[in-house]
């Protein structure tokens, strides 16, 4: 099967249209960010608290909100999380002015009290207590009368029982009543009876809780920016060294910035939240976009070596056509994976996958219409102004690097980089 058999599409003909489209997308993004809604930062960057809870029954968000308002935690956001039938909720609390407040504990207390009313303080909440607490309580109560027996260690035995009970809770989602504990395999009747008498099933299970202080938020912001900046610099340095040409390097830079701007803008438009994982996706997309650009550039470089009088415009067009099949196929394969992640990977990976989806499309497009087009535009501009070409990069022919050889194949003659000055000479 083949999608593209020796195509000969004049991609570059539409370069000005493409540039217009790119600018339109970038401006939409910038408008969203700076005028409309701004970037939504996750607690990784803004600081604050995020808690995910799983409820026994479909939670009434408005009711939960009234409970939390009474806790006086400042701005609180509550939204559904994951699939609706899972009854999961994400609670977000703004950064507290006072240090040392245990926001997670306060939120849990407020919700529990609101939903359940006063509870017996002596009963442990089966759904929010952890393994270690349960084990400690069991050991202290010793329902199986193990203390004094020589064949078992009470603490270990009870710890094992606690572990089984908590694992059972994970299987069930949560315990609706203390009687549910009876369905745990490998737990003695004595323990079950004790649990029945001394525990209560709270209305929710704590899935995760995150609390990020303002200092860490700032640090993470700085780190994220540094990571994006440095990896961009790193890759562009690589391209500069590998291709030894100003327009190529410039094309790659502009294409990268272009992809980042459009992707970030679209994420803002979709109201997606920026967190560390999204930054990871952005960095991956920078790598991916440059990767795509490099494939086209590699082909252009190779085609420029054939001693034929052919205008750069058509060399680049031909190169794009030659790599088109690969570009579409690779993007398609990666896209399949990302789509699987988008639909099946769960809430945490959802924005990550969306970022890459946008990035793959934009990155593929930009390697043709930004990276390659800029090389053409740059040369047009140069010849238009009839400049005597002073090759800015590598005026002295660089030593020809031997190409890395394929494991057993012959040395590849085409891979040896040539000084860019030569290309420009041919162009004149």
């Amino acid at each position, binding site marked *: 099967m*083949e999608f593209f058999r*020796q195509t000969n599409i004049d991609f570059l003909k539409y370069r000005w249209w493409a540039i217009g489209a790119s600018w339109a997308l970038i401006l939409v993004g910038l408008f969203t960010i700076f005028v409309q809604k701004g970037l939504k930062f996750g607690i990784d960057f803004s600081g604050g608290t995020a808690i*995910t809870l*799983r409820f026994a029954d479909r939670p009434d968000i408005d009711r939960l909100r009234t409970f939390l308002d009474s806790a006086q935690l400042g701005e609180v956001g509550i939204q559904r999380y994951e699939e609706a039938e899972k009854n999961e909720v994400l609670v977000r609390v703004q950064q507290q002015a006072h*240090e040392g407040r*245990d926001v*997670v504990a306060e939120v849990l207390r407020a919700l529990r009290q609101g939903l359940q009313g006063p509870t017996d303080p002596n009963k442990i909440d089966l759904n929010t*207590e*952890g*393994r*270690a*607490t349960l084990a400690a309580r069991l050991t*202290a109560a010793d329902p199986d009368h193990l203390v004094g027996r020589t064949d078992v260690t009470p603490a*270990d035995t009870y710890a*094992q029982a606690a572990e089984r009970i908590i694992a059972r809770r*994970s299987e069930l*989602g949560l315990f609706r009543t203390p009687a549910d504990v009876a369905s745990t395999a490998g737990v003695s009747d004595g323990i079950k009876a004790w649990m029945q008498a001394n525990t209560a099933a709270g209305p929710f299970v704590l*899935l*995760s*809780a*995150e*609390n*990020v*202080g303002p200092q*860490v938020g700032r640090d*993470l912001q700085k780190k994220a920016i*540094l990571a994006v900046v*440095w990896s961009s610099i*790193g890759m562009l340095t690589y391209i500069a060294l590998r291709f030894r040409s100003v327009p190529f390097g410039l094309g790659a830079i502009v294409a990268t910035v272009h992809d980042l701007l459009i992707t970030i803008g679209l994420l803002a438009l979709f109201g997606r939240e920026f967190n*560390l*994982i999204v930054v*990871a996706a952005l960095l*991956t997309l920078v*790598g991916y976009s*440059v*990767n795509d650009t*490099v494939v086209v550039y590699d082909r252009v470089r190779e085609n420029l070596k054939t001693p034929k009088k052919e205008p750069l415009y058509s060399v680049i067009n031909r190169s794009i056509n*030659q*790599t088109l099949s*690969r570009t579409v*196929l*690779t993007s398609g394969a*990666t*896209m*399949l*994976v990302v*789509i*699987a*992640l988008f*639909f099946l990977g*769960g809430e945490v*990976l959802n924005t*990550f996958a969306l970022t890459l989806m946008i990035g793959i499309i934009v990155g593929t497009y930009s390697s043709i219409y930004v990276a390659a087009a800029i090389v053409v535009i740059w040369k047009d501009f140069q010849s238009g102004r009839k400049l005597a070409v002073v090759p800015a990069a590598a005026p002295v022919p660089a030593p020809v690097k031997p*190409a*890395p050889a*394929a494991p*057993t*194949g*012959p040395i590849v003659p085409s*891979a040896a980089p040539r000084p860019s000055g030569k290309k420009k000479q041919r162009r004149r």
Partner: protein
Amino acid sequence: MGKKLRWRLLVILLVLLGAVGGYVLIGYQHAQKEWTGPGGPTFKDALKKGIKLGLDLRGGIHLVLQVKTADAVKAERDDAVETLKNETKDANLGPVELPTDTTFIVGVTEKTDQAKVEDVAKRFLPDWTYSTGGGRWTFALKDVARRALEDSAVSQAVETIRNRIDEFGVSEPLIAREGSDRILVQLPGIDDPKRVKDLIKNTAFLELSLVEAGPSTQAALVGKYPGGKVPDELKLLEGKPLPGERERTYYIVRRQAVITGRDLKNARPTQNQMGAHSINFFLTATGSQKFGAATGANIGRHLAIVLDNKVQSAPNIKDRITEQGVIEGSFSPEEANDLALVLRAGALPAGLTYLEERTVGPSLGLDSIRKGVTASVVGAVLVFVAVVVYYRRAGWNAVLALILNAILLLSAMALFEATLTLPGIAGFILTIGMAVDSNVLIFERIREELRGGRAPRAAIENGFAKAWSTIIDTHATIIISALFLFQFGTGPVKGFAVTLIIGLVISMFTAVFVSHTIFELEYGRRSHIDTISI
């Protein structure tokens, strides 16, 4: 079969065997370490345990704490003031002022024996610089000494937290110093944030100080002093609220502690004959000396046990205590146990604040694994189908290479003890998507060569040769971005970078070396090939 081909096959076989064998071996090791029941881990356990899971998949607690190093510096300053006062008792010092954490000023009058002050400063305060003039002596802590103090405060805090966590019985805890004053704590498999935080929180700054007044209300205590200002050598502290009482109680205690956490050697919960829970504690040699002198001189007075600047209790000194003593009070068994733990692990030389706290419950981790694995399997199958449909026989070649890539990636992660996180799973599957790129580059080249009229075998050789430099370039760019991600990323994101880097390096081997070998295996034997299925 050519000699070269046989050699290539041998390399692939050895790599595969090494990878699988290594993975299973490491899996056994991990499983053995965690094994508690009778017998030993099975082969299935070994397969499950090969790769370390990150906190986001395994469940657990991640904390970043900051050591308030200023506390240690202040304690040192208070210590210096006290030393100076004690050693110059008959020198008639003027009032002492404490303008900053690292300086103090001693006033002098006509009666002050200044030679004595200088002598004491020289002998007992080597870490302080001093100057005189304007009717006062100004002491400043040397920078070197301050840095050393801060540094040791952090190291000691790390050590203390480690001891506490060990008591808690966590497998594979991570307690590490980060930067100048931060501590990273990671406790996999722990789902009890409250309990852990209580334990670490109580690992606070511990002091035992003599009570001057209290318990009483704030107003009553402060009112005793002229102008409502508590003198510098004393401090007002809040007491732990008594159960059932709403009014807060306060104490006035001496600023200079009798002993601090540093002087404690051990502590354990005990029960007396009446069945009441109490704590037995033991002191170090220097601690015994200090404590003996202070308790001997103050029998009948109250001694405040101060944790995190809060008075936990203020028992009566019944006798002179040197090496060991008992703290009695109305403790529940859990409280006695926890207080003993606090004392035993030694309290910190400086307080702590929480900068970051992340808890992942066990059910979320399981859920994430299930989803990540489902998405990966579906993604991989989609890619495999696409490649086989598009490239037919050669597509199978690519699928083989990709599967090998996945196996090698898993075992490399086990060998490097890399941690798999949820974004790491995404990285894993993304690697599969990107590794296909190399195969696509090669296959498209081969097709081009075939179209150009080259004989099949030459087309294969040329295809591989010409795609090579592009493959290097594409891999290099992504690896560069992943390296920076690794450098600047934290936790889960780091896991993503690691998976991506390892996966890409492996894909150079599988897509080029392995695929080439499979082609050779398929077409190399025949003397003449008319077509290749690509």
